[in-house]
C-alpha cells in the first residue's frame, strides 16, 4: 500500500489522524506493518489488492483516485463499501478499517488522549 492511500483512508476512518505528525504516522504505520507481516501470505496479497481497488474504484464515479478526493467524497466511497451487497467488499473494508484502528488506537498516546487510564495498580492508582 502506498502512504498516500493509507493516509487518505486512515484520516477518513479516524479524522483525528489528520493531526498526527510525521513520527506519529511512522509509529502508526509500523504497528500496521507488523500486524500485516504476521498474517499469511495469501491474506497479505488480498490486502494489497484491496488497497489498490480502494484507490482506483472512485475513478468510475468521480473521475479521480481516492487519495485525490475531498474528505466528504472519500467518506461516501468507504461508506458504500461497508454497506456493499458483496461480502468480499464488506470484508475487505472491515479488514482495512481494523488495521487503521489498530495503528491509531494501539499507540499509547492515542489511548491516553481519549482518557483511557487502566493501570496494573488498579484502584490504588486512582486514589
Amino acid at each position, binding site marked *: 500500500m502506498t502512504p498516500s492511500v493509507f493516509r487518505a483512508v486512515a484520516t*477518513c*476512518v*479516524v*479524522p*483525528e489522524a489528520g493531526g498526527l505528525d510525521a513520527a506519529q504516522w511512522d509509529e502508526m504505520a509500523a*504497528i500496521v506493518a507488523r*500486524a500485516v507481516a*504476521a*498474517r499469511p501470505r495469501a*491474506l497479505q496479497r488480498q490486502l494489497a489488492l484491496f488497497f489498490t481497488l480502494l484507490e482506483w474504484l472512485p475513478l468510475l464515479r468521480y473521475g479521480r483516485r481516492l487519495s485525490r478526493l475531498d474528505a466528504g467524497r472519500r*467518506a461516501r466511497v*468507504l461508506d458504500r463499501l*461497508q*454497506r456493499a451487497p458483496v*461480502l468480499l467488499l*464488506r*470484508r475487505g473494508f*472491515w*479488514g482495512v*478499517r*481494523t488495521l487503521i*484502528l*489498530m495503528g*491509531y*488506537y*494501539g499507540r*499509547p498516546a*492515542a*489511548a491516553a488522549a*481519549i*482518557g*483511557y*487510564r*487502566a*493501570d*496494573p*495498580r*488498579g*484502584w*490504588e*492508582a*486512582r486514589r
Partner: protein
Amino acid sequence: MAQELAPLVRDGVRILVLEKGPRLADEEFTGRELEMADALYQDGGAFLTRDGTMTLAFASAYGGSTVVYTGTSLPPPQRVIRAWDVPGLDHGDLTRRSAKYAEQNNVHPLDDRLINDNNRLFVEGGRKAGYLVEQFPVNVKGCRGSSLCNLGCPNQAKQGTNRVQLPRAERAGVEVVTRAEVLRIEPDRTLRVRVSQKAAGTKGAPSEWEAGDYQVQARIVVAAAGAIGTSALLLRSPLPAPRSLGHGFTCHPALILVAEHPHPITNDVGHPKSYFVDHAESEGFVLETCMYFPFVTAKSLTGFGPAHSAIMQAFPRLQMILILACDHAAPGNRITVNRAGNPVVYYRFMPETIKGLVRGTRAAARIFFAAGARRVHAPADPTLLEAAEAGRLEERITARHFQPGMLGVSAAHLMGGCGMGRSAADSVTDAWGRVHGLPWLRVADASLFPDALEINPYLTIMGLADRVAEAVRRDARDLLGSGPHVATAGA
C-alpha cells in the same frame, strides 16, 4: 487434567504436558494492549474464520485461555446438559466436579466495595428495565481491580490453571514443556513434536527442551488444546477418527455495545465482568458487563469517521455490555485443516443467531437508557441512538444492520469439534472423553461439547476434564501395562 493425573507419577508413570505457548514470568504481564495480545493470543486475538466475518480469541500460553479470560465461573446449566443427551453424562456429577474446581480456584462473588460504576450501572439499569441481573462468581484472590483480565492479570490475582493446577502438577512430578507443538499423533502412539526457539524480543521463557523436532512415545494421549487446537491436531493425524471430527463448532458470537453517560464513570478500573443477564433459553442471548481496551473497543464499534470518533473520545464516560448469542451446532460450521495442517474454521451465521444478537442489542440498549445513558452506539443507521429514541428500539435496531462483514463480531467461547455422544456414528468421543475406536486417545477440553453451553464454559470444561482424568486413572493399568511409561496430557 495434569493435576488429576499427577498421582500416577508415584506409580512410576512419566507424565508430560506439551504446551504450544510460552511460559511468561509474572513481571511480563504489563497490561499493554497490543503487546500482551501478541504475547498471549493466537494471531493476536484475531484468528479469522474462513469467510473473514468473525474473529476468534483464544490463548496460546502456559495455562491456555484461563490466562486471558475474566475468571467468570458458572456451573453447567442443567437444561443444556440434559439437552446434550450424552449417555453417561450426568448433570449432578458434572456439577459436583465443577464445584471442586470452584473451591480450588477461590471462586466467589466479588465484594461490593470492588464493584465499579460500569457494573453498578448495569445492575441498576437492568433492574429498572425489568431484567433479572445476577452476579458472576469469579476466581480471583487479591484482585486489585486493574481491569486488565483479558490481557493476563498483571497482579497474578486470577486463579487460572496457570496459577493453580499446572504448578501443583509440576510440584507433583509432571513435566511441562512449553513452546512444544504437537504436529501429529501417529497410529503407534508416537507424537511428532516441534519445539520452537524463543524469538528475539518476544515474551516468555525459552522452552524446557532444546529447539528441534522430537518423537515422543506415549501409551495414553490426552488432547487438551482447545476446540480448535484439538480438532486440528486429530484432523492432521493419520488416525481412524470418527467422521464427525471437527463438526459441531459453536462459539457464542459476541458483540460489544457501548453507551455514553453524561458524567465520567469508573470503567477502566475494577473487575470488568461482575454481572450478567441470562436470556439464553427465552431469547437466545446472554448479556454481560465488560470493559475493553482502546483498540478492541474501536474495532468493535460499527462504522467509522466522526460518529465513531465521538464515542471513542467519550471513553471515560462509556458503559459497555457484551452480547453473547446462543448459537447451535449447524451443518457446515466446522473446523478443518488446510494443506499445511493449520486450522481453518468455517462459520455461517444462522438466522436464529442473528436474531439472538438483535434481541440482545435491543435489551442492552434498554439497560443503557434505564441506567441514564444519553446515547447508545449500536449497529443501526445512524449508529448513535439518542435517549429520546429509547422507545423506538424495535424500529431502530433491526436484522438488516447485522449482516456478516458489517460489524465486529468476535467469539471467545470456542466449543465442539470432538463432541461426546453414543458412538462413532454420531460423535467423536464417549462421555469420558474416549475417542471412539481409539481407547488410548482421550480429549479433555471444550471440543467435547456436543452443542453450545449457553453460558461461560470455564467450570464445565474443568468438570469434564476431571471426568476424563478419572477414566484415564481407571484405565491406566490396562493401557500402560507394567513398568514406567509416558502419558501425555495437553497438546
